[in-house]
């Protein structure tokens, strides 16, 4: 049974991503929790880059797919209250790092499967960041306990799903409160229904398998568990085969779609994502899934990611095909310093022992 989920999840994310590119998304841009959120931030006016504005239904599908499955399985339990402000900051740091690399770790795998070797450099940095994060965890880092909400407080667990639903209605109706790019990557997208269905499927499967890009490596290091790593292997293979079939595959570092070859900053960008993801309990994708299942701490992390997209583009700190400018380099170094300070500062003493 385990293998069935590994293979189906791998195919939906790997082959699904290639099909989304075939259907209109930019190159190696089928799924990306970071860039797609950045496009949503643009659609909402959080940043003003005219070419990066579209409410990506894939992301809405992740949140709603997770919500629907959590709800129907009885695991929807609204909770939160463990340092939401810190999670907001960590979310912002994650997106700042991801936009320097130009992708979340999931897109790192998809880029590699399209032949973009910069993806490998980024993923190496991601692994480094996770290792650093585990170091903080082993030294007692934690953000305290979240509480399960009861009574009227239960309603806040629905906020993320409700927001996703409103945005979905907005994008379906081409509502005036959203921006839509007329040209550039934001104007390139698969038909809404295709994006939404693949997003919903991806969200449901990611919820079911607890897929988390940082969690995969972390579980392997901590307890030698390879379940999530196997899913990444299948995602890679499925995307690789799909890219070969459609003729998207192009091996090398140079002239890859929405990518640059500044190795140090590709490495450092995803290093920051790996560190911030480990400190906040999950990668950008996992935060979206947890927000959907009623975790308001994860929702604050997602809000931080949206704000981080605004900061990144507002300060001109995002990478681009021409590379990473000085502002982006400073942002990553500052981000690493802030993440390290959080890692050292937050060691709430929680009494774990109840007896014995």
């Amino acid at each position, binding site marked *: 049974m385990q293998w069935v989920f590994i293979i189906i999840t791998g195919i939906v994310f790997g082959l699904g991503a290639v099909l989304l590119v075939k259907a209109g998304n930019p190159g190696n841009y089928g799924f990306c929790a970071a860039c797609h959120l950045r496009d949503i931030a643009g659609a909402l006016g959080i940043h003003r880059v005219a070419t990066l504005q579209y409410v990506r239904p894939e992301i809405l599908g992740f949140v709603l797919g997770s919500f629907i499955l959590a709800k129907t399985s009885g*695991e929807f*339990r609204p*909770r939160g209250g*463990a340092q939401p402000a810190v999670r907001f900051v960590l979310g912002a740091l994650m997106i700042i790092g991801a936009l320097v690399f130009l992708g979340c770790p999931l897109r790192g795998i998809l880029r590699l499967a399209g032949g973009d070797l910069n993806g490998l450099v980024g993923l190496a940095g991601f692994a480094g960041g996770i290792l650093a994060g585990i170091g903080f*965890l*082993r030294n007692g880092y*934690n*953000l*305290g*306990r*979240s*509480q*399960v909400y009861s009574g009227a407080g239960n309603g806040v667990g629905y906020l993320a799903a409700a927001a996703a639903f409103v945005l979905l209605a907005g994008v379906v109706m081409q509502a005036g409160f959203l921006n839509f790019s007329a040209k550039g990557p934001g104007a390139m997208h698969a038909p809404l229904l295709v994006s939404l269905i693949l997003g919903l499927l991806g969200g449901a499967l990611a919820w079911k398998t*607890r897929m*988390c890009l940082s*969690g995969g490596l*972390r*579980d392997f290091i*901590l*307890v*030698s*568990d390879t*379940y999530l790593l196997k899913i990444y292997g299948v995602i890679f293979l499925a995307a690789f085969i799909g890219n070969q079939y459609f003729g998207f595959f192009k091996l090398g570092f140079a002239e890859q779609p929405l990518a640059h070859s500044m190795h140090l900053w590709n490495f450092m960008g995803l290093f920051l994502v790996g560190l911030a993801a480990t400190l*906040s*309990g*999950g990668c950008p994708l996992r935060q979206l899934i947890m927000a959907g299942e009623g975790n308001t*701490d994860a929702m604050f992390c997602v809000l931080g990611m949206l704000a981080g997209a605004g900061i990144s583009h507002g300060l001109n700190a995002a990478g681009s095909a021409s590379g990473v400018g000085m502002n982006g380099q400073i942002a990553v170094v500052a981000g690493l310093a802030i993440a390290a300070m959080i890692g050292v500062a937050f060691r709430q003493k*929680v*009494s*774990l*022992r*109840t*007896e*014995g």
Partner: protein
Amino acid sequence: MLKTLDLRGLSCPIPLIQTKNALENAAEVQVTVDEPVAKENILKFAKARNLQAQCSVNDGEYTITIHK
């Protein structure tokens, strides 16, 4: 000696790390978690180490007992 830990509400993967640490100096550990993912991770860990584990559910909270 039985060691009992209350790991409810802690972010992933802290429940797992605490369970693992507790098993280093106790023959039997009982933990309480309230997230399915924490429960699954702890049970997977026990299985990987060939440790006996029992899990009971009560109102969304999972109590897992692990023997060495």
